[in-house]
């Protein structure tokens, strides 16, 4: 009898682990309860305007904003698929060099894209539209779509659209980085007309960004478990012994929380983790090139299209020319990670098992130097980390727009 009781108590003890004070501090940091409202974006004066978000939502899924009339942001960032597309690299009008990223966590990050080459959500939104592999569109075409179908909503937010009737002044398809014809058409425009179009293009991005800022991160079973750890009344979720062991590895021996920390399990930094280069893709320098592009971007926080009166400190004090930036990529949020394979900046790994195996081996980086050291995890430990990562699955959304 006594022995049975002791065994039962031992089982309870095994199921309810004790966390040290330091562990609890780390765990509290990972909890969704620690997630604050998105930081303000002074460079976008409609960032938190509900009407702008409505316009942005419509634009986000408008396939009319593409060269073939078939691609919208939502083609790759599929709301039903954690805003990703299950492909190794994004596929729009053509196929790109990088993997589609989830949208909801991006609002918390000072830098957008795997290499952080945009310093705001609105500047980011301008990239895919003129990317020949994505929307394959041009900014004068964007202005015409806005004028034809969204002029009321647009003008209420941003004031009058320019009169685009004169096709000599405003060619149908003109973009500074587009195909040779679009480029020539852009270069033929006057400086003043280019600025008029750029302003409309920036406003398009600002409306899309306002929508993206409304997307919510949904809690996971891990959060429900932590709620219990932090004293929420029963019932709260339990984690299996494997999941708990995986969590302990994640914040301990695995050192995952060095980079994957905070309520999104990302420090919003960039790191070279020695992910193999995709054999069929051109050389990719990651953050080393991305930060230079952000500084040079006319749509950055310090540019004339920004609404920020001053500040722009992330850009002003950005780390540039640091050898550690070669092949460093954005530390992704791990929320919902089990629901959106494949992984890494070019979809190099197709499963979480492959990801954890990579961390265990920590191979040399193809370029630059990897920041991670081999963990030499046992098969059990690798399985446990994967089990833990799956507790980060987002709970189903209450509605399609969650």
């Amino acid at each position, binding site marked *: 009898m006594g022995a049975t009781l002791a065994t039962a108590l031992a089982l309870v003890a095994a199921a309810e682990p004790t966390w040290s004070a330091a562990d609890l501090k780390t765990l509290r940091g990972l909890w969704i309860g620690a997630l604050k409202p998105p930081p303000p974006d002074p460079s976008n004066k409609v960032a938190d305007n509900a009407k702008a978000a409505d316009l942005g939502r419509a634009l986000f899924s408008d396939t009319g904003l593409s060269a073939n009339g078939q691609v919208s942001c939502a083609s790759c960032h599929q709301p039903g698929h954690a805003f990703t597309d299950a492909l190794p690299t994004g596929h729009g009008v053509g196929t790109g060099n990088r993997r589609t990223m989830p949208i909801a966590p991006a609002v918390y990050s000072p830098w957008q894209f795997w290499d952080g080459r945009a310093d705001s959500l609105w500047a980011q939104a301008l990239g895919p539209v003129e990317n020949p592999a994505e929307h394959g569109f041009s900014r004068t075409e964007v202005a015409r779509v806005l004028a034809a179908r969204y002029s009321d909503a647009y003008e209420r937010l941003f004031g009058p659209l320019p009169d685009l009737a004169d096709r000599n002044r405003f060619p149908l398809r003109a973009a500074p980085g587009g195909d040779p014809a679009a480029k020539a058409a852009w270069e033929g425009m006057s400086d003043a007309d280019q600025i008029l179009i750029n302003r409309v293009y920036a406003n398009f991005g600002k409306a899309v960004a306002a929508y993206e800022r409304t997307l919510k991160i949904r809690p996971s079973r891990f959060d429900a478990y932590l709620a219990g750890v932090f004293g929420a009344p029963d019932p709260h979720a339990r984690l299996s012994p494997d999941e708990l062991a995986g969590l302990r590895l994640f914040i301990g021996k695995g050192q995952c929380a060095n980079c994957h920390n905070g309520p999104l399990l990302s420090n919003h930094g960039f790191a070279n983790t020695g992910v193999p280069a995709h054999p069929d893709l051109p050389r990719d320098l990651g953050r080393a090139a991305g930060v230079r592009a952000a500084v040079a971007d006319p749509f950055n926080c310090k540019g004339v299209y920004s609404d920020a009166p001053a500040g722009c*400190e992330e850009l002003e*004090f950005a780390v540039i020319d640091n050898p*550690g930036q070669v092949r460093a990529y954005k530390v992704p949020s791990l929320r919902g990670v089990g629901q959106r394979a494949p992984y890494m900046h070019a979809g190099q790994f197709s499963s979480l098992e492959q990801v954890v195996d990579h961390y265990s081996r920590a191979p040399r980086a193809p370029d630059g130097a990897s920041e991670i050291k081999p963990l030499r995890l046992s098969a059990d430990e690798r399985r446990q980390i994967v089990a833990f990562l799956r507790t980060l699955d987002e709970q189903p959304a209450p509605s399609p727009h969650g």
Partner: protein
Amino acid sequence: MPQFARINRRSLAYRVLGGVALLAVVLAGGVAAAKPRDLNISLDRPSDRGVFRVRIQSQVAPIPLSRVHPWTVHLTDQAGLPVSGAVIAIDGGMPEHHHGLPTAPRAASAATPGDYLISGMKFSMTGWWVLNLSIKAPDGRTDRITFNMVL
């Protein structure tokens, strides 16, 4: 070889400051350093070789997380006289996680003697951070100092 030299100098700095030996390789790659138990977290201290006394202070209290914010530096010499016109270079990071600062802060002279403003400071997470100041006074005197902060 320069890598080796850098490691040695840092380890020396740590020995002097924290009273802890063998904290080499910090931020220079390699094994992450564990936080010494008797970490000196004073923000008002003599520099490594005692050439200056340096006081630093966040202009936002408590020190904010994930937000760029300014700090001030007050620099005096051994006699306690303010040192103006010095060039101060800043780096740092998290020794336990061997990564550097998330931003590249810069120091500039302020209006009052011995005072400087550091703009662009940011800490992206809680834990042990170090801030290294390399100081070059206009008369050629130089020294370094490493401050520790636990956020």
